[in-house]
């Protein structure tokens, strides 16, 4: 009989709720622990305010916020990708924040038009090519990768990754659905091999000569080159010579917003402001070789060495609004 009773009794004993002090800030984060903990530690050291956090994937975290409703313990929701941030705002999980400091620190195309979320770091999705096999001047734009001259020379990461969904979503705002579908169809026709599960694998395939060019977030490039500096890989910034507003490298953000039902709004806003400040931005971006969202802050030396680029200035929230459509488009053309 003891066999099943004792664990239940212990479980009952452990049925005590979690203690959250009134001035603690509680964060639900889809940005990983190793990237955010150093920041929260620094914040606690500076202000004495404790930051409690749990990490999970963005989907379950949003489902959790929704289920907890107005009694959620969370004050701040943090995630990667504008598509996810847009969805959080759409589900009414976030609250508009009016802060002069945030307005000044974060450029308008990197935050929600309704100020419900703010980008905190910028991630550029650009081209990486094999420097032995691609001639200067061959690369021009994302769209050009659909050109038959790249047949059998292109590698891509899976369409299931939100980074590619955002990229296609942004192309849809620029070209419309029909033309974008043609472009993505061209990409699929040019693939040298099945899409890869991550950016690093795609770059390794380029380095090994299985294909010549791929589309990746720059920090994966930085990480790979740090480990294997001799790989014949280089960065190319596409879409630089176009005259429209949509011209430029596709950028996305990792960011955060105050939860709609926070019990500690002042504390959450203060943490958010601090994260956008000059002293925190380097810590935030450099730990993952990303670009600071605050234009007054210079990126890490490794990152600046890749050169300057002109980013696409369309508001990143667009990617979220079109994400479902982008996924369907990629399904239609067989981009897996």
């Amino acid at each position, binding site marked *: 009989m003891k066999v*099943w009773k004792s664990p239940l009794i212990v*479980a009952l004993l452990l049925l005590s709720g*979690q203690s959250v002090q009134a001035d603690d800030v509680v964060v639900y984060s889809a940005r*990983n622990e*190793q990237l955010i903990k150093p920041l929260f530690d620094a914040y606690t050291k500076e202000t004495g305010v404790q930051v409690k956090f*749990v990490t999970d994937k963005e989907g379950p975290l949003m489902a959790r916020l929704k289920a907890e409703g107005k009694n959620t313990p969370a004050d701040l929701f943090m995630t990667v990708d504008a598509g996810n941030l847009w969805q959080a705002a759409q589900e009414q999980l976030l609250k508009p924040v009016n802060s002069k400091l945030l307005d000044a620190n974060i450029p308008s195309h990197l935050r929600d038009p309704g100020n419900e979320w703010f980008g905190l770091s910028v991630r550029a999705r650009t081209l990486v090519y094999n420097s032995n096999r691609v001639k200067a001047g061959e690369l021009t734009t994302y769209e050009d990768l659909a050109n038959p001259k790249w047949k059998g020379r292109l590698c891509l990461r899976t369409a299931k990754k939100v980074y590619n969904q955002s990229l296609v979503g942004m192309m849809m705002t620029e070209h419309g659905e029909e033309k974008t579908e043609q472009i993505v169809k061209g990409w699929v026709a040019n693939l040298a091999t099945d899409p890869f599960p991550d950016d690093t694998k795609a770059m390794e395939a380029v380095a090994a000569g299985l294909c010549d060019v791929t589309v990746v977030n720059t920090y994966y490039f930085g990480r790979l080159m740090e480990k294997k500096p001799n790989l014949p890989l280089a960065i190319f910034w596409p879409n630089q010579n176009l005259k429209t507003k949509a011209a430029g490298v596709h950028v996305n953000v990792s960011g955060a917003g105050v939860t709609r039902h926070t019990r500690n709004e002042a504390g959450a806003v203060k943490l958010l402001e601090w994260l956008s400040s000059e002293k925190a931005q380097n810590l935030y971006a450099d730990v*993952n070789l990303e670009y600071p969202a605050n234009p007054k802050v210079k990126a890490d030396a490794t990152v600046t060495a890749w050169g300057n680029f002109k980013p696409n200035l369309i508001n990143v929230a667009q990617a979220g609004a079109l994400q479902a459509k982008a996924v369907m488009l990629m399904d*239609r053309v067989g981009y897996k």
Partner: protein
Amino acid sequence: MIATGKAPFTGAFSMSSALTGRLGPWATAIGLALLTLIPVGVVASAMLHPDQAIWDHLWKFVLPELLVNTVWLALGVSMGVTVIGTGMAWLTAACEFPGRRFFSWALLLPLALPAYVTAFVWIGLLDFTGVLPTWLRETWGIMGLPPIRSRGGVILVMVLALYPYVYLTARTAFQGQGRRLLEAAQTLGISRRRAFFKVALPMARPGIVAGLTLALMETLADFGTVAVFNYNTFTTAIYKAWFSMFSLPAASQLATILIFFVLALVLIEQFSRTSRSYATSARGGGGARRLRLTGVHAVIATGCAGLVFLLAFAVPMLQLLAWTRNVIATDLDARYLDFAWYSLLLAGFGAALVVSLALALGYAQRLRPTPPMQFTARLATIGYALPGAVLAVGFYIPVAGLDNLLIDAWREGTGQEIGQIFGGTLAVMLLAYCARFLAVGFGPVETGLARITRTVDEAAQVLGSTGLKRLATIHLPMLRGPLLTAAALAFVDIMKELPITLMTRPFGWDTLATRVFEMTSEGEWERAAMPAVAICLVGLLPVIFLVKHSDART
């Protein structure tokens, strides 16, 4: 929804006294079924607001491919794990060959490696840019290796990761068969080889099927491994609908189809064997005398077991150790003691609870062996076939709903604010583990109970031993092997579990598995190696314990 949310608690806590009563078995079974059915119902209820546009799209462009993929994967994995699992179980349980002692426990070790980690290692070794093809290409000019990122590749890796389920349950079954059965067969003039196919194998069928069911459910629920291969299955479509297209209704439609598919499979298997009896009274005969393999046979036996061990465990482990060496200086800190401790604690309590509830369910089924009861028991174990994240969310929604009700009532009554009551407690976390892993405990327990003849019960009855007393004094000792098996499986599965742990853990309760998640979700596979190795080390404890104790009997 909220009111019934409490049912599992009642069912669980009143179990001990209720078991003996007339309605006890039913109360137990229904309570446990609700533990799983409520989350499933929460997810399925989203179907009430169907998302026609997305559903049409999925139907036209996504479903055809994933149905074919899922069926192939299920078939391939089923065949692979049955052949390897049963073969290895027979070798180590009934034969004697060089290295048998080592292999009998070593072949269980792949259980402790998360399948998606094994998958990543194999892709790293065998893909175009991997170590082996690169070496072949650059040194010998050999190009034509079959691609690992293919249907065959994903089946192979999943077989290597999941065969231990069958190995473990089949081995328990072979060990329980005793010597007399085979001796009887031999006195009838059947050779040992034919005796295996004619007697031992059919008698072990419930055990093999129990393991196979687990492996199949895990295959259908898997997201991590197929994602590494970019191989689209039902689960990937569910995730896509939910987390990429933000359509819970479409995800729920897909998940519900998946559940019905699994239920149908389970029921078909059930009906196909209801008329047979697998009880054996041969325990008194002791374990079978081992068949001593010599010469070529011994070499083949050792070679096969060695190959399985090498591919399923040694190679992935060596790669993980090599990666760990690269990062151990920067990544290893005192926090790892906490991670390991929390993992151990959760897996330990979780496994104890899972096994207790599985035993209660198995016993309820034994006391009322009717088709409706068997169906209820199947329902209670269906959670294992549901993608983890779906089950986690389905479980959390009613818990949070209950919390909201209580918090609001308290606020109205007293004007004071209180925090969450159930959310973020260990009790909820452990119950959620049970909703997911009850199948893991139930499979071995059910098989074990089926092997105890009714005459044992009748004899006990005559001697005045009934109800719980009979369970404690007669059945429990006879169930020792199955219970240990169930506990070891549940322990290791909980150690590796992610979605429920991520969603329900209290602040700061990071485990080894969540460490793996933090690293892999940003693509830092090398840094994920260290926590994966640690999972393996901690997961080793019950495996070794299990084999030491189950071997002691033979």
